[in-house]
């Protein structure tokens, strides 16, 4: 009996040993996992700025304000690789959201969309035409990445982008600047909102004109407060923290209110109005504190 008992346990032990020797295949990354997404500084600090977490869009802007006589420009919408680089160029697939896009056919053309060989970032190259209507119109095109055999689509929250262009001051795309805009322009949004839903180029133009803000990318003028390349070197608004920390946003809103009041008084037939966003057609008002 004792021998049987011992043999039983020996057999059990051998079975365990034999089973435990089974080899599992090591998982390898496959090229088929490679994907693309739009940049998001919330994921990687060094990526191009523009991701807006409230809208889930990568916001890109282009303006002909600094080159009014150019007939067109090529804008490269950045795209980031998730996965390994390849030794050949790969095509990025996308679709235009026709429902949201207001740019008419012929006002732009997508030249190519490529993830170059040996690169972790690619681009969707778009030719934008400088047309007369851009003086008072902002065109927008919405794009969403799609998957192909070569490149899958990345996380859905980083797969859409909106490119807008006009002849006006470029729209702020960084949350730091959007918040500054909302601190100064009256709307139903919180004064610290980072939403662009009420943004209008005319209101930004009023801010820039009233406050003389067109050099926030200049370190010699603004010292440590300047907008570095890491923030997109945006010229027209300071990061919100600089006007929040000393409560000067209240003073700037007051200065803006003075400007709007004076402008409207001298232009009674054409007062300053929002030309885009949820407040389109309404009078531009500065916040009051």
């Amino acid at each position, binding site marked *: 009996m004792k021998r049987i008992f011992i043999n039983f346990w020996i057999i059990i032990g051998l079975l365990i040993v034999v089973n435990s020797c089974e080899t599992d295949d090591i998982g390898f990354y496959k090229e088929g996992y490679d994907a693309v997404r739009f940049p998001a500084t919330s994921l990687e600090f060094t990526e191009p700025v523009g991701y807006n977490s409230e809208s889930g869009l990568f916001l890109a802007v282009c303006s002909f304000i600094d080159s009014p006589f150019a007939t067109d420009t090529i804008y490269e919408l950045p795209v980031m690789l998730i996965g390994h680089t390849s030794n050949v160029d790969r095509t990025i697939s996308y679709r235009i959201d026709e429902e949201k896009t207001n740019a008419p056919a012929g006002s732009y053309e997508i030249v190519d969309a490529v993830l170059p060989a040996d690169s972790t970032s690619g681009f969707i190259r778009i030719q934008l035409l400088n047309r007369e209507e851009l003086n008072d119109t902002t065109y927008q095109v919405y794009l969403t990445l799609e998957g192909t055999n070569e490149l899958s689509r990345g996380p859905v929250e980083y797969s859409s982008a909106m490119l807008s262009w006009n002849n006006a001051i470029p729209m702020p795309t960084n949350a730091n600047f959007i918040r500054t805009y909302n601190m100064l322009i009256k709307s139903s949004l919180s004064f610290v909102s980072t939403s662009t839903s009420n943004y209008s180029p005319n209101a930004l133009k009023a801010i820039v004109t009233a406050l003389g803000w067109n050099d926030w990318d200049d370190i010699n003028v603004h010292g440590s407060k300047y907008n570095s390349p890491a923030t997109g070197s945006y010229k027209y608004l300071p990061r919100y923290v600089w006007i929040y920390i000393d409560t*000067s946003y209240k003073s700037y809103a007051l200065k803006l209110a003075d400007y709007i009041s004076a402008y409207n008084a001298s232009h009674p037939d054409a007062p300053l109005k929002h030309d885009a966003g949820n407040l389109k057609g309404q009078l531009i008002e500065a916040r009051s504190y």
Partner: protein
Amino acid sequence: MKIKIFIYSIVITCCASLFLSSCYDDKSTLATNFIDEVLIDTTGIRQEQFIGYQELLTIDPAITVGSTDGESRLEYEWSMAYFSKSNSEFEVISTDKRLSEVISRPISSAPYTLKLTVTDTANDNLQYLCLWNVYVQSSFLDGLLISDTKDGTSSDLTLVLNNQLTVNYDKEEKVYRQILEKANGAPYNKLMTALTYEKFGNAMIAGSGDNQVWAITSDGDCLRFDTEDFSINGTSDDESIITYKPAGFQFKSLFRSYQMFVAHTTAGFYSFMNVSVNTFGWYDAAMTGYIPDNGVIAATSSSSVYYNHTVWLDQVKGAFYSYSGSASFGASVGHYQSNMVFDPNAMADQTAVAAGIKEDGSIATFLLKEKSSGSYAIYTLGQYREAEETAPATPASARNKYVIPNEGRALLDDAVSIFFAQRENVLYVATENGIYAILYGSGDNAVVSTTPKYSTTGGETIVKAKLYQQGHHTNDNATTTGTPPLITPLAWNNKAIILATQKGDFEGKVNVIPISQAGIGTLDPSNGLVYDGFGKILDVTTIGY
């Protein structure tokens, strides 16, 4: 048997090893060649050397070998290094026995290391080392800053460095005159009538931040200087000092209070937390509607006094009020409870003349003049204290009143400056011809000393007088009163007075007179400092570094 042999072998091997090692030749038992030791005597040379940028640094230690100077066999090397993560190399700056070199290293709050290496070439290049910490500073350190005008329309600054007025200063006195004209080719084109030192940054971190002087001009504008080179780094003409300036806006006074820098203006109070902000971005909403009578305000600069740090008699409300907290992180304005002595909320017949406050903010003191009778009295107010384990909370309330007798009234009516001592119960009164002391603190009446503590001579008249407090004390007195203090308190801090006198319209003189008996306000002019050569003196203040 084999084991036994093995053990024997081990024992024999150990013994042999011990035997061999014991044969080591111990040379210490042989005759020794004594060499004359090189002695570097640094007596009287401070371990911490403070030098102005591009100033001459001289260090002359006594170096001897035995009874000689060893000149023929010694080599000297002075080298300097700034130790940081990326740099720790010594750079040779002199090979002379006596160091006398102009130091052109960048200004730094951290010290450079200065090394003297003396090499004895007669003894196998035996080396002897001495080390010092060298602080390279701006040439403009802390000291006395004077604004004066030579023509009645423009003004300039003069800085005095003296070991009584400048922290860690053991060199010859230096007086930098007409700083702005020498830097810019012309003095400032307005009259700078009120100077206030302020440090932009955390006062409790020594060597950090920017030392600044704010100047209010006779027309109510304001400008700001970086004291490192006295360059203008802000004016009220743009947004560098105030973001929005209402029409007719003028600055009246500037002062430090708790962790704020405060401006009293024609549009009310503005304030900001000067640890991180350098601009008046918006008015101080907590103070809206309050007007300090005659602009008289008692404020402690201590960054650790949260409650009742700023006190005033309100011109509109006829009552005492105090400010707690800060506009940025929650502010409140409160009143004082009355007691049997007086009602702080029924002061409509009083007008404020002077005010003072203890360093810890515990007692605010006001000299008030009764409008109807013209009589003077000193009122003290106790501040709110939070409950502690051994004591309940104490409300802000009235404390004492000391009536000033008629002889004091005559002095006060003729006064050009009136100020309280911060630590003692002494009120100083400066008339055109002398300084007087009024003592208070016991009984119901103040005691007036009609014998001047100081009298002018030679036709001079006093135009301004104030208590001497070193710059850092005025910016944040927690830096000079801590245990241990962050900034070395100067011997004269709170123990001297500053006096500006004029002989003619443009013949001014500044005196700093030590107080020899602080409790009764006795002055010691014989040990004071006197600086002449000024035009019309507009203001005198102290700055920190």
